[in-house]
């Protein structure tokens, strides 16, 4: 067993245990934090596969942005844990069927001789100066340019739709227009008045 094997098994163990804890732990905030641990261990596994661009992007996008917002929402929600637990037994059969189906599907794809995943040889290991980032970039913008652009358009549509859905006209809200604030001069707000000084009463 080489050092890499030890690292692989240690990280995989952390990944599996934290994945299990995501669904079993009672507190939703802790569940979200375990999900973050899952992502980080997943990124570490990708690093072992020499996919450093994907690994760092996973941390940057999912851990650094998506999960922050996720945690945000989970922290602010007032979730009643007892209420959530109530339906557990009732939904257990449906959930079990879905889980078994997914496992079967995965097994069929991974173990089938038709997909060729079993016979695939060990991926070639490249040296330290091999730039993973440049490689992915050139493939994304040449061979896969249409799927890539379509995916980005879909994302933009989703962003616009999400913003449009949350936009509400609220007449009572007050907001600033900074350009008008900056354009204000003292004369607009303040009028100097000459007042005659009053004579002292005798």
């Amino acid at each position, binding site marked *: 067993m080489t050092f890499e094997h030890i690292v692989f098994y240690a990280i995989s163990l952390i990944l599996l245990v934290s994945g299990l804890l995501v669904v079993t732990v009672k507190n939703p905030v*802790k569940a979200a934090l375990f999900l973050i641990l899952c992502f980080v261990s997943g990124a570490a596994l990708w690093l072992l596969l020499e996919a*450093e*661009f994907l690994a760092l*992007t996973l941390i940057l996008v999912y*851990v650094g942005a998506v999960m*922050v917002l996720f945690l945000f929402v989970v*922290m602010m929600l007032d979730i009643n844990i007892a209420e959530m637990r109530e339906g557990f037994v009732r939904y257990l059969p449906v959930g079990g069927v879905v889980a078994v189906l997914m496992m079967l599907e995965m097994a069929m794809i991974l173990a089938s001789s038709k997909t060729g995943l079993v016979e695939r040889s060990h991926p070639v290991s490249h040296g330290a100066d091999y730039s993973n*980032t440049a490689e992915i970039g050139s493939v994304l913008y040449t061979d896969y340019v249409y799927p890539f652009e379509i995916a980005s358009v879909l994302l933009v549509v989703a962003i616009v739709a999400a913003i449009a859905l949350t936009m509400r006209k609220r007449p009572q809200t007050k907001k600033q227009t900074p350009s008008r604030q900056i354009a204000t001069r003292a004369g607009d707000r303040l009028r100097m008045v000459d007042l005659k000084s009053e004579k002292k009463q005798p």
Partner: protein
Amino acid sequence: MTDVTTALAWLPDFIEPLLTWLPIWAQILVSSLLKIVLILVPVLLGVMYLTFAERKIIGYMQVRVGPNRVGPRGWLQPIADTLKFLTKEVILPTNANVYLFIIAPMLSLVPALAAWAVVPFLDGWVLADIDASLLYILALTSIGVYGILVAGWASNSKYAFLGAMRAGAQVVAYEIAMGFALVGVLMAAGSLNLREIVLHQSGGLFQWYWLPLFPLFVVYFISGVAETNRAPFDVAEGESEIVAGFHVEYSGIAFALFFLAEYANMILISTLTSLLFLGGWLSPFDGLDWLTELPVIGLLFGNGLHWLLIKISLFLLFFLWFRATFPRYRYDQIMRLGWKVFIPVTLVWILVMGFAMFYTPFGHWFH
């Protein structure tokens, strides 16, 4: 896998014979640990004396003297502060989530220190010269916000929670502007490796990226100030509204860790700005051979670590200067600046750069 010669690369020569009796993996381990110590001890000392410099400099800016009691002219003040932090009790609030409450300060300090692994100090003087070092730094600095979020939530306090919410939204917003500013640097340098980005800027003051990428430079540094939750963007602490924000329930060394993380992040942002936009260790006189070939003082004018340190100190001074000068931004104004000003500015400049590099003869300005 690294070999022993790269592991020993910039350590002093007398180290190598001391390690030869060890097995190879131990030699690599020991020399890497030595390098980590060589990087982190100056960083932590820098943090200690940055707190002192902050109090002194802001003191002079406000026509006060600042701390001057401990040691000659107050120079031992940071050591006294450290001892005080160490001896104080760490209070656990009632109904706080104990594990998360204790983990949170570490969560904010660890990324702030781990990011130094890829920072080059001179050509080749770097702990891990990895290809995607800029991405690594972006990834690690984006994890830092969890310390704040978890601390705010685990404290079981309204003020801490409000501070954490503010900090979370702010950091996420400014990270985008920061990332886009870095895209410009990537386009200009054609590399994600910090050492190569610096070497691309060689050739004197006007070859550094601050000039062709000026809007990105300004956006990057100001976003850096916002990322570290420093004044005028310190609504996360907002001592006049929410007492001290996310760390209000922390005391003793647990509080000191947040403090350390904040200052380590300040030094990191200053270092990155100097590396990315001001040519890192390169001298502004690079290319003027008559000056760099002068006897003795020629060394000062040549490239060297001292230039990097001068640039870092300059940006740190800006951090302190901002704090002494500007009143705190209101929360909605911070969001407006991040989303409606900085992100469009960076996007437009990236478009301008791309257009100039591929369709006009002025592309070399950006290389």
